[in-house]
């Protein structure tokens, strides 16, 4: 009889999972590029890409924060293994979002960038979030984790601050309907609640109590 637990922990499977996540993170923006190339993105493709990359970065950020609760719930190490990778992808998407703004919204006009950075709160907050995500991405390679030792974890808790800034940035551009923003904010709130110690403890305890999956196999 095959033992699903040990199979799921097989190093080659875990490596395969990381490669799949990598491929998906590239394929998603490629699908947007295809839509633009086929003229399905409408008459304002620059704005279309800007919005897709913005929403994409926020989605990846929420996904990153869902990985820890998922790992606790299932006990599968694969989720933990792609966390830093997805975090870096969130930054890459945010950087592409910023590039779209520079190219398609302000037309690479330095005066407009300076005016926006000095006068417009949502641009300032967005820029701060981008810098923060950049700092976290730069300290995400394994070598940096080792070098920073005990300081790494407190530094990377700043991801919560980045999420808050991104949501504020999004909130401030809403014009007439808060529905879409509300959905993302609700998911963020849910993920934060799962980190509340009483709930977080129960998450791990639930899996052990149900006796399912890998934990059982390891005990044998």
């Amino acid at each position, binding site marked *: 009889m095959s033992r699903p637990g040990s199979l799921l922990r097989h190093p080659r499977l875990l490596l395969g999972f990381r490669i799949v996540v990598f491929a998906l993170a590239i394929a998603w923006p490629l699908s947007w590029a295809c839509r633009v190339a086929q003229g399905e993105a409408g008459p*304002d493709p620059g*704005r279309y890409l800007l919005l897709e990359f913005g929403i994409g970065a926020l989605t990846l950020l929420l996904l990153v924060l869902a990985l820890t609760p998922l790992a606790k719930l299932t006990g599968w190490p694969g989720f933990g293994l792609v966390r830093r990778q997805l975090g870096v992808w969130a930054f890459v998407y945010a950087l592409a979002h910023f590039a779209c703004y520079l190219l398609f*919204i302000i037309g690479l006009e330095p005066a407009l960038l300076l005016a926006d950075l000095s006068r417009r709160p949502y641009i300032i907050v967005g820029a701060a979030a981008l810098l923060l995500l950049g700092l976290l991405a730069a300290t995400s390679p394994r070598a940096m984790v080792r070098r920073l030792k005990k300081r790494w974890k407190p530094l990377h808790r700043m991801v919560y601050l980045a999420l808050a800034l991104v949501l504020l940035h999004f909130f401030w551009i809403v014009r007439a309907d808060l*529905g879409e923003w509300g959905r993302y904010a609700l998911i963020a709130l849910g993920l934060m609640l799962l980190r509340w110690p009483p709930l977080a403890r129960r998450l791990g305890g639930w899996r052990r109590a149900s006796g399912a999956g890998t934990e059982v196999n390891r005990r044998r």
Partner: protein
Amino acid sequence: MLIRRREHSHALEHEVTPERLYRDYRDFRRERRRVLAGALGFGAACALPRAFAAAGGYEDIDPGSAPDWFGQRLGDARWKAVEPGPEDRLTPFDDVTHYNNFYEFGSGKDDPARYAGGLVTEPWSVVIDGEVARPGRLALEDVIGESRLEERIYRLRCVEAWSMVIPWLGVPLADLLARVEPTSKARFVRFESLHDPEQMPGQRSRYGLIDWPYTEGLRLDEAMHPLTLLAVGLYGRSLPNQNGAPLRLVVPWKYGFKGAKSIVRISLTDTQPSTSWQSLAPNEYGFYANVNPKVDHPRWSQASERRLPSGLFRPNLIETRMFNGYADQVASLYQGMDLKADY
């Protein structure tokens, strides 16, 4: 790698109608339209919406459906009564009809095209009330009255810093106002759009910020200005639902949101009416909302605009002009006013 899928709408070479046949058929349709327009003069009162070929050189445009009176009026429309500048190229019909702000149908740009299809626009009537000698409820046909339909090719500048060039079909608002005879107390005109959550999903959203119905307003002299248009069509056909069917306002020197869509009520008032966007965010949207590159929206610059369609490799960013390029005709309306304070 670029993967090209063939769209259903893309014809293969062998499916293309030879030009001569096409031209013959086009002439035939033109002739038929002329005959039909005459014959239909009688039965117009009990009109059901029907399809007319788009006119005015837009034979390739999906004609949609329109009441009979509209088809007749197309016959003597004054084509290209107002033309844009030499550098203004028409925004393609597909873009004009699939990139819309019409929050009654949702906040996404493609929501109106997706959800407005079911809006019932026939029959349609408009209540005229307030400071007028002849108030009442007018059928859409009577809103147009005896005025000849005119094609006006206007620039449309959205407050979100994108713009289009659209060939509208309509009549001067001044014609209607003259017929209903504003009293001496009338100083403003208020426009009210349809409020019908059953037909308009955006009005059902619980997180919407707009207080329905959508309302807009003009000063009486702005409303009487010859450029101010009551539009019933575009691209040689009736207004597509997502563009504000069957009756909308077009004020080309103001931001697009001043152009109330699906109008059901026009009131003349002695005080400045409250308008939807101004009520929602008075620091962002003023009553006048004249296109003005020197007065920024608090959240973004108004100095330039993306003229659509805008390509990825050659973004079509152009400088925004005072009063959207109509300063010669309208600047005198605002003489002595501080446009930074009255934005």
